[in-house]
C-alpha cells in the first residue's frame, strides 16, 4: 500500500516494483532547478567532475531571484557567468532577473506537475508538492550530479498524513496553519519524512494557500510536502503544463503516522525570533514594536497575499517602512491591473522587483542591528535578515495590520 512518494520514486527508478520506506533508490529526475545563488557552485562542481554537456537542457530550469538585480560587481559577475553557461549549454528555460522567485516561476511556467520527480538546488523546492509532485531540495554538488547524469539517489521516506478539517476564520490563512503545525511538531518533527496534507480544508484551499503550506514543510525538516492533486490543480495547470502528467495518490492506510487538525478555532499565529517553531498566537505579543514590514517571498508573495494586504492597508499610510515584493512578474502585472499596487504605493509602501528580496539577508531591504521585522517569509534564524536583527514570521494579514499600526497586533482587533 504505497504513498504518493513511494509511487513517484518507484516509477522514476524504473525498477518496476514499489520501493519501501527506508530503501535507497536511484531515480531519473523529471526537472531540475538551480537559481543565481546555487548555480554558481553547481556549475563549478559540474565542471570539476569533468562533465561537459548537461544531460538534457530541456529539463533544467534556471531562474534568477536571490540577489536581483545584482547589488554589487561580485554578484553581477557571477550572474554573468551563470547566464553565459546556460546559453552555451542550450538551456532555454532560463528566467532572468525580474521573472520571479524560483518557487513561483516553476509552477507558473508549468514545470511543477503531478506525479513528477523534481529536484531543486534550494531548500524550499518542496513547494512544488502543492501540485502533487515529489519535490525536494538538494545542494550544489547533487545538482551537478543531476545536470551531468539526470539521476540521483533518494532514500524513500515514510509519510506523515495530516488531515485538515474546518473552515478558517477571517484573517486566518494557510500561513497561520503552517506555523501552528510547525510549532507543534518542532523544527525537526518531520526530518527525513514526507508530509501529505489532505482533508476538507485542503480541498477548499486555493492553489496559493497550498503552496504556502507546502513551502513551509522544510521548516520542520520534511523531505517533501505534498497535496494530492485535484481539479483545482488541473485548472491552474491548464495552458501552463510543459508535459503530460499522470497524478498518483496514496493508498488508504499507507501513511506511517496520521495527524488531524480542526482549524475552526485557529487564531493568527506568529513565529518568534529566532526559531520557526517558536510559535504562539498573535494575541500574545500584542503591541510589540516593529521597524519594518516585509510582504513577499516564495511563501507569501502571491496575488492572493497582496490582495489581502491591500484590502487592509487601503486608505491608510503605513506607520513603519513597508516593503512589498510580488513573487513574480505575472503576479506584479495582475496586481497592477487590479489596482493593488496603486493602493500599496498610495499608502507609501515600497514595491520591489519580483525576487527573494531581503528574506535571506543579502539584498534589498535587510535590517540593522537591533531592528525588528514582521515578515511573511519562512525563516527567522539569528541574523537571517541582517546581523543583530530579529524577524517575526506571520501571515500577510498580520503583516498588513502591523504595517498600518507600527506594532504587532491581532488582525481585525482594532
Amino acid at each position, binding site marked *: 500500500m504505497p504513498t504518493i512518494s513511494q509511487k513517484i520514486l518507484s516509477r522514476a527508478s524504473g525498477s518496476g516494483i514499489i520501493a519501501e520506506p527506508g530503501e*535507497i533508490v536511484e531515480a531519473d529526475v523529471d526537472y531540475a532547478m538551480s537559481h543565481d*545563488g*546555487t548555480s*554558481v*557552485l553547481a556549475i*563549478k*562542481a559540474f565542471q*570539476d*567532475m*569533468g*562533465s561537459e554537456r548537461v544531460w538534457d537542457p530541456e529539463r533544467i530550469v534556471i531562474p534568477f531571484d536571490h*540577489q536581483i538585480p545584482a547589488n554589487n560587481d*561580485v*554578484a553581477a559577475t*557571477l550572474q554573468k557567468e551563470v547566464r553565459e553557461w546556460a546559453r552555451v549549454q542550450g538551456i532555454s528555460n532560463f528566467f532572468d532577473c525580474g521573472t520571479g522567485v524560483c518557487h513561483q516561476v516553476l509552477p507558473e511556467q508549468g514545470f511543477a506537475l503531478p506525479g513528477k520527480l523534481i529536484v531543486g*538546488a*534550494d*531548500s524550499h*523546492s518542496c513547494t512544488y508538492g502543492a501540485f502533487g509532485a515529489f519535490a525536494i*531540495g*538538494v*545542494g*550544489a*554538488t*547533487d545538482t*551537478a*550530479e543531476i545536470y*551531468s547524469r539526470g539521476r540521483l*539517489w533518494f532514500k524513500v521516506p515514510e509519510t506523515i498524513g495530516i488531515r485538515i478539517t474546518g473552515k478558517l476564520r477571517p484573517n486566518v490563512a494557510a500561513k497561520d496553519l503552517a506555523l501552528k503545525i510547525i510549532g507543534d511538531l518542532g*523544527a*525537526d518533527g518531520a*526530518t*527525513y519524512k514526507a508530509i501529505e496534507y489532505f482533508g476538507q480544508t485542503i480541498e477548499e484551499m486555493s492553489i496559493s494557500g497550498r503552496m504556502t503550506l507546502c513551502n513551509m514543510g522544510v521548516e520542520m*525538516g520534511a*523531505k517533501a510536502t505534498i497535496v494530492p492533486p485535484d481539479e483545482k490543480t488541473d485548472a491552474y495547470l491548464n495552458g501552463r503544463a510543459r508535459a503530460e502528467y499522470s497524478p498518483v495518490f496514496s493508498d488508504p492506510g499507507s501513511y506511517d503516522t496520521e495527524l488531524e487538525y480542526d482549524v475552526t478555532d485557529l487564531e493568527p499565529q506568529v513565529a518568534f525570533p529566532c*526559531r520557526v517553531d517558536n510559535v504562539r498566537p498573535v494575541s500574545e505579543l500584542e503591541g510589540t514594536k516593529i521597524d519594518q514590514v516585509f510582504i513577499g517571498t516564495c511563501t507569501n508573495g502571491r496575488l492572493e497575499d497582496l490582495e489581502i494586504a491591500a484590502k487592509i492597508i487601503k486608505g491608510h499610510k503605513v506607520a513603519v517602512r513597508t516593503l512589498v515584493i510580488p513573487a513574480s512578474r505575472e503576479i506584479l502585472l495582475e496586481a497592477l491591473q487590479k489596482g493593488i499596487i496603486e493602493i500599496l504605493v498610495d499608502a507609501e509602501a515600497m514595491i520591489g522587483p519580483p525576487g527573494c528580496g531581503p528574506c*535571506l*539577508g*543579502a539584498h534589498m531591504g*535587510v535590517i540593522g542591528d537591533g531592528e525588528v521585522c514582521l515578515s511573511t517569509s519562512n*525563516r527567522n*534564524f*539569528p*541574523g*537571517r535578515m541582517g*546581523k543583530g536583527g530579529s524577524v517575526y514570521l506571520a501571515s500577510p494579514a498580520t503583516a498588513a495590520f502591523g504595517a498600518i499600526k507600527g506594532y504587532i497586533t491581532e488582525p481585525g482587533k482594532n
Partner: protein
Amino acid sequence: MFMIKGRAWIYGDDVDTDVIIPGKYLRTKDLSLLASHAMEGLDPEFSSKVKKGDVIVAGRNFGCGSSREQAPVALKEAGVAAVVAKSFARIFYRNAINIGLPLVEANVCCVQGDTVELDLGNGTVRVGDKVVQGTKMPLFLLEILQDGGLVAHRRKEKQKGAP
C-alpha cells in the same frame, strides 16, 4: 577502515545553516572567506580558535535550513574533520558527504575539548572508554567520503573509464 580522532566542539540542537555561514557571505568562490566566517552567527570566536582536525559534536537537526553547500564547505575549510550529531537535516547530510566532510549520526555525550574517536565504517563514536553506536552509513556513501566527495569520486570513476 575510516577513523577520525579529534577535539570536540559542543553545540546544541537545530544549528541552522544561516549561523554556520550567513547569507551575505555566499556570493564568493573564495573558500578561505567562507572558513573565516564559519559558525559566525552562533560562535564568533569559532573560526579563530578551531584547529585542524577538530570535531563538532551537536544535538538534533544539525544543519537545518537552507540548501547552501557553503555550510559544510565553511566547516571543512575552517579545519573541522567531522561532525557528530543526534540527527542531521537531510540536505546538510547529503551536502557534507558530497563535499567530503565526514559525519556520524549518534547521540554522544561529551564536553568541550574531549577527545572523540569516530569509526565511520561501523558508525561508532568513542569518548574515553565509552563507545556509542550510531547509524551506519551505506557503503556507497562511505566510498564517496573516502574519495573526498562526489566530485572527486566521479573524476576517479572517469579515470577508470566510466562514461
